[in-house]
């Protein structure tokens, strides 16, 4: 699936003294795709993004964009643009001047750069606030401005460093839909760093799960969630139980676990959590492993369970999925 317009990481490594933040990662980002780099804090996802952007030097390996090694170019010459976590809008400049900043640096005359800035502000529906200062905008509005400012450089790859983390949950869901729409309209690659798996699943064409400086698993969201390769991925993506069956470790989706009276794996209920459309029943097995079963609301209330009760857990063997150790 190679194309001449790929962004490619080749043996990319970042070392700080004796610690390795990113360890020999290889990955190909196809053009015009929405990719989420997902992982817990300190896993190397932000460092990877900052290396692609050019704000962090590469210890070894290279970054290729459209066949050209960009790893030693200045950030603005790479064909990438970055949207910062705190948006990093210039507090002393109006929205219009913030967006046209890169054109001013290039020496584009005022009328041209302001016209261009206004067209990008239209794109993010912020043209009516062009004269405001960043401090006079809400978080969501600031984010749109930051987006416009990054896009005015006409990047082939847009890098987003936890772009939604500063927003409240309601706005987060709205903005992520908007990010997705923009990516589709502009048909450029978005690389979006996040530690929220729901965000990654909702947005990404491809999810890249990182842990301990390496890529743990990469693939379409449905594949990564449905078939986690390792225990880390299964636990991090959520919705799975990791159990020892026979000689191996297996992932079993929580919504596949059935609760019976006696038959199946014996366990003791330890908690019941009502979640609206379903109920999460937590139980501890005889091997002292924790299992979460998601029971549809109606089924649960037909046969309620109280903590302390002994349960029999079962699932379709076809739905259990072997993990690499």
């Amino acid at each position, binding site marked *: 699936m190679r194309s001449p317009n790929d962004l490619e990481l080749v043996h990319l490594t970042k070392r700080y003294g004796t610690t390795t933040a990113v360890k020999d990662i290889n990955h190909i980002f196809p053009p015009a795709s929405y990719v989420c780099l997902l992982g817990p804090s300190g896993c190397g996802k932000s460092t990877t993004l900052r290396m692609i*952007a*050019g*704000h962090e030097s590469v210890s070894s390996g290279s970054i290729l964009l459209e066949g050209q090694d960009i790893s030693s170019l*200045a*950030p*603005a*010459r790479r064909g990438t*643009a*970055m949207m*910062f*976590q*705190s948006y*990093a*809008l*210039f*507090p*002393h400049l109006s929205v219009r001047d913030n967006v046209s*900043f*890169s054109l*001013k*640096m*290039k020496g584009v005359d005022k009328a041209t750069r302001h016209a261009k800035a206004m067209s990008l502000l239209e794109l993010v529906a912020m043209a009516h606030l062009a004269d405001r200062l960043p401090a006079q905008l809400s978080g969501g509005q600031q984010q749109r401005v930051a987006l416009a*400012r*990054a896009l005015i*450089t006409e990047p082939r790859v847009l890098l987003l460093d936890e772009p939604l983390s500063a927003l409240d949950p309601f706005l987060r869901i709205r903005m992520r839909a908007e990010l997705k729409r923009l990516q589709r309209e502009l048909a450029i690659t978005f690389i979006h760093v996040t530690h929220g798996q729901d965000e990654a699943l909702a947005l990404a064409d491809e999810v890249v799960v990182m842990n301990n400086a390496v890529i743990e698993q990469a693939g379409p969201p449905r594949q990564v969630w449905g078939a986690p390769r390792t225990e880390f991925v299964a636990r991090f993506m959520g919705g799975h139980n990791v159990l020892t069956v026979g000689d191996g470790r297996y992932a079993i989706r929580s919504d596949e676990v059935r609760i019976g009276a006696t038959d199946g794996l014996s366990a003791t209920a330890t908690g019941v959590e009502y979640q609206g459309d379903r109920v999460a029943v937590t139980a501890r097995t005889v091997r002292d492993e924790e299992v979460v079963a998601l029971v549809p609301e109606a089924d649960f209330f037909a046969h309620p369970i109280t903590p302390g009760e002994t349960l029999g857990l079962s699932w379709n063997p076809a739905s259990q999925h072997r993990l690499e150790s």
Partner: protein
Amino acid sequence: MSFLKSETARAWALASPLVLVLLAFLVLPIIWILVLSFWRATEFAMVPDFSFENYAYLFGSTVTWQVFLSTFRYALITWVLTLLIGFTVAYYLAFHIRSSTVQMALFLLCTVPFLTSNIIRMISWIPFLGRNGLANQALLSMGVIDQPLEWLLYSDFSVILAFVHLNTLFMITPIFNTMMRIDRSLIEAARDQGAGGWQILTNVIIPLSKPGIMIGTIFVLALVMGDFVTVRFMSGSQRSNVGRLISNDVGLLQYPSAAATSIVLLCTVLILIGLLMRFVNIRKEL
């Protein structure tokens, strides 16, 4: 309503110690100077009056205008030099020193000269700059000059040198403080947007350091405009500024005249600072 009343009373009670101190030691003396400036003086006594004699004499004399002009000149040159040095030092400390320990150590190093008195720091220049001082001897022995330089000491040069030496820290501190508050991701964002080092300086760092520059400017202007000791020592009493005018009057017991000059100086400095405040809003910085 009684709640509101007690709140107000509490607020006043809390503020009153500072209000009293300021009233007693700032407002009252200034009012007293203002009153005094309208009195008349003979060779032997001060006569309570409401006369504009002192002001008329002050504004009528060409000496006053010359002295005010030279005071402005000292202030302007000192301001330019302290700003250039102060900004450069603050920039270096804030953006080039990575480790915060080294940063703090170097900043404290800047304050070390302030552990000695102003006068001592000033006077210590005299043996260095004098006719047979270290500077002249070194230049002579290197063959750069064959006559000792006369303008090193007791000149505008030595006055401004001392002013810059004494006041640069008042520029460094506020500028360093505002620079430390600049979000580093702004610098990265500017670089991401294609700004070079110089463009980052002029488009991001200088505009965002303005409040610090303004506070430093107010310090330096106020200190230089109000000074009389530096000018007296470093010019060997050959140059004058408004401060010396006042101190001479005081020496001659011409208090009403000194008071009038003080009031004019005070107003001048206040107008100057008022004008500066129109350019930059420092309130949010304090």
